[in-house]
């Protein structure tokens, strides 16, 4: 029975590992299915968070298209155009919900077939990808608050002294340079962020295209927009206020797609856009905002929580196993035989490189390199969730390896010596004596790492993994209740991290064992003394 207890921590690790393998297996099979399907599916990349061009909704109403790898749907002007093209190509269409910055690498690395996301063909972009003819002719505007002094502006000159911004890597952000005396604030990642910034008055306005103005006017009664395409407005090439479809260089479908677009006159474009503005998600807040958010988006939030927990649990568990293995290897005493010594030194060197690289670079960069880079350079096409799980695991492994090494070297030298003197091998010492103590000492640091993982997996939105933060920005993009939505999200994060802290406290207590011990007693001593005369 004593031995059983001792083995239990190893079996827990084994169990976690098994869970990971099964999880990885399921993802692998879903990935295989996706790969089989992708031969036929026309996969279109867009943010699905930029109404009225594209947005996310929860059902297939109004001719929405499924979003790959989720049970959500995308709709909007871009989606309607995508459907026309897919119909002509004779392929079913699906949307790959992708961050704006991730669209170009997703296309060049073959993760998607086309970008239909309100993208303007600029010379820089044309260096890496091809563009079709325009599918929407737009106008440049600045969105401002109705009650601000810029609401009455007519020309660029009127924006002197205004704090303005635009979306990162867009034509619109560059246009701010044309406004003399305006303060060009740092660019923002997406339209949700800009809308929040405008509502909270941290900016006076943002440069966008006309449909965004329609959209904001519907969604936010306090917002209005100034059209700056005419006289005294922005000066720009005709192509710079056009939206076109991005394709990989020399895509054979380009001619077909162009012919579809040629049958989309301005009047038809305008009709589709008006329809999109009408159909875009509306805020339906009648009562308590908190209940509203849960009623409308409860399912999405739960899936976001699930994904965040999956990433954090698998990442921490696998990272822990990696950390343990590295801890064992790095503390092997220098062998007597030369060849073995060289081999050990080489392995140790490799492990140091691994730790330095993954501790020394941000996880967001690792994710982008791994997901887009691997596909672009080697043609390895992993699905998002698998990539995310791998990145979180090896990133956590690098940290936990050092934490566990610290736990091992903090153990009294006498423990090693006594075990060595009894004839135990390095592995036996580690397994029975050292690691149980090192792991116990490392638990506070592992808890930390777990909590960091819950929060920091939000950076994986770069590869469009729909964890909690990504879900939150999607919801905020739909309901325009930025403050309330992000408040809800932060509350969920807080509950998760707090719960996990408590759970690990309990584990710590359990590992410490009981404070008192039973003396081994014989039956004679155990027997309750009988008091005479009673």
């Amino acid at each position, binding site marked *: 029975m004593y*031995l059983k207890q001792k083995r239990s921590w190893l079996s827990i690790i084994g169990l976690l590992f098994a869970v990971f393998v099964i999880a990885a297996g399921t993802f692998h099979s879903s990935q295989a299915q996706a790969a089989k399907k992708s031969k036929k599916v026309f996969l279109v990349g867009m943010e699905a968070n930029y109404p009225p061009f594209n947005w996310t909704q929860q059902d297939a109403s109004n001719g929405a298209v499924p979003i790959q790898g989720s049970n959500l749907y995308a709709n909007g002007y871009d989606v309607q155009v995508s459907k026309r093209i897919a119909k002509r190509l004779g392929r079913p269409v699906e949307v790959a919900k992708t961050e704006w910055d991730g669209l170009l690498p997703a296309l060049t690395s073959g993760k998607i077939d086309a970008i239909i996301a309100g993208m303007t063909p600029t010379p820089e972009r044309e260096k890496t990808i091809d563009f079709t003819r325009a599918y929407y002719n737009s106008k440049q505007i600045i969105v401002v608050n109705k009650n601000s002094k810029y609401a009455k502006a007519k020309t660029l000159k009127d924006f002197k002294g205004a704090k303005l911004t635009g979306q990162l890597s867009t034509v619109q952000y560059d246009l701010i340079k044309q406004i003399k005396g305006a303060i060009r604030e740092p660019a923002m990642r997406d339209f949700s962020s800009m809308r929040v910034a405008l509502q909270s008055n941290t900016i006076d306005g943002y440069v966008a295209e006309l449909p965004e103005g329609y959209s904001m006017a519907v969604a936010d009664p306090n917002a209005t927009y100034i059209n700056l395409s005419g006289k005294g407005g922005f000066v720009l090439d005709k192509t710079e206020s056009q939206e076109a479809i991005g394709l990989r260089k020399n895509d054979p479908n380009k001619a077909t797609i162009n012919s579809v677009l040629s049958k989309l006159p301005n009047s038809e474009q305008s009709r589709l856009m008006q329809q999109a503005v009408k159909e875009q998600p509306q805020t339906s807040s009648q009562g308590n905002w908190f209940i509203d958010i849960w009623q409308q988006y409860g399912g999405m939030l739960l899936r976001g929580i699930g994904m965040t927990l999956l990433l954090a649990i698998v990442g921490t568990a696998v990272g822990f196993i990696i950390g343990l293995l590295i801890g064992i290897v790095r503390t092997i005493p220098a062998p007597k035989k030369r060849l073995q010594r060289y081999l050990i030194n080489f392995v140790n060197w490799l492990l140091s490189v691994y730790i330095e690289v993954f501790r020394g670079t941000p996880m967001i960069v690792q994710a982008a390199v791994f997901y887009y880079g691997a596909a672009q350079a080697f043609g390895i096409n992993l699905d998002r969730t698998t990539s995310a799980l791998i990145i979180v695991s090896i990133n956590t492994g690098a940290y936990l390896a050092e934490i566990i090494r610290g736990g091992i070297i903090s153990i009294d030298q*006498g423990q090693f*010596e006594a075990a060595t003197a*009894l*004839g*135990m091998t390095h592995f036996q010492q580690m397994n029975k004596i050292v690691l149980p103590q090192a792991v116990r000492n490392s638990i506070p640091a592992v808890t930390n790492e777990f909590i960091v993982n819950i929060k920091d997996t939000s950076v994986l939105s770069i590869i469009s993994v729909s964890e909690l933060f990504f879900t939150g920005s999607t919801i905020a993009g739909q309901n325009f209740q930025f403050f309330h939505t992000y408040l809800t999200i932060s509350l969920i994060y807080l509950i998760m991290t707090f719960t996990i802290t408590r759970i690990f406290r309990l584990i710590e207590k359990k590992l410490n064992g009981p404070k008192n011990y039973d003396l081994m007693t014989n039956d004679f001593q155990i027997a309750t003394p009988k008091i005479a005369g009673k």
Partner: protein
Amino acid sequence: MEKDNILTIQHLKKSFGQHEVLKDIDLQVQRGEVMTIIGSSGSGKSTLLRCLNLLDDATAGEILYNGQNILDPNFNRIQYRAKVGMVFQQFNLFNNLNALENCVVAQTTVLKKNPAEAEKNALAQLEKVGMGPYVKAKPAQLSGGQKQRVAIARTLAMSPDMILFDEPTSALDPEMVDGILDIMKDLAHTGLTMILVTHEMGFARDISDHVVFMDQGVIAEQGSAEQIFSSPKNPRTQEFLQRYLKRL
């Protein structure tokens, strides 16, 4: 009469960097004898003991165990260590295991005994050192004397040919010392080979078959307990023993 040496040490040297701790040690240990190594701090007693169990690697020389050189790279160190027990000054009980598990773990991992048998043997050894009631206690819950008893039981559970004791009572409160010495005395009578580094001169005199006086990395004098304690020849031995006898 043919001598039956369990250990033969020849020209043993050990340096830590520039510092030479053991300078050309020659020593023979007979099977079944109780050998005590005495000497002032820094004379190399503990280092010699650690070299004998390969916790420290000798720089030069030979240590023959039953005729085999244990410093040979192909020598099976694991098997040797299982046969040669060591009791430490600081006890070094495994902190994550209780008294019984401390005595079981090496039996099952190194000797590959089955758990039930190992547990039975461990209980017997713990009983022998008077720790029967405490088998479930963790090291942190035991006193120094109790820990050292468990450490001795842990070594005995391996059925060793020889036990090395490295100042086993130096870290104990004075009232704990006698109990440990009694256990060692009992062990000495079983015919087990024991090598003991100690500052307990009275005890060394009582139980030793063979006393070695070390000074500055060399064996300054050796002989029977009677010879060394009653009529030491080397002036350094005399000086050392006088300091101790004065204290007694």
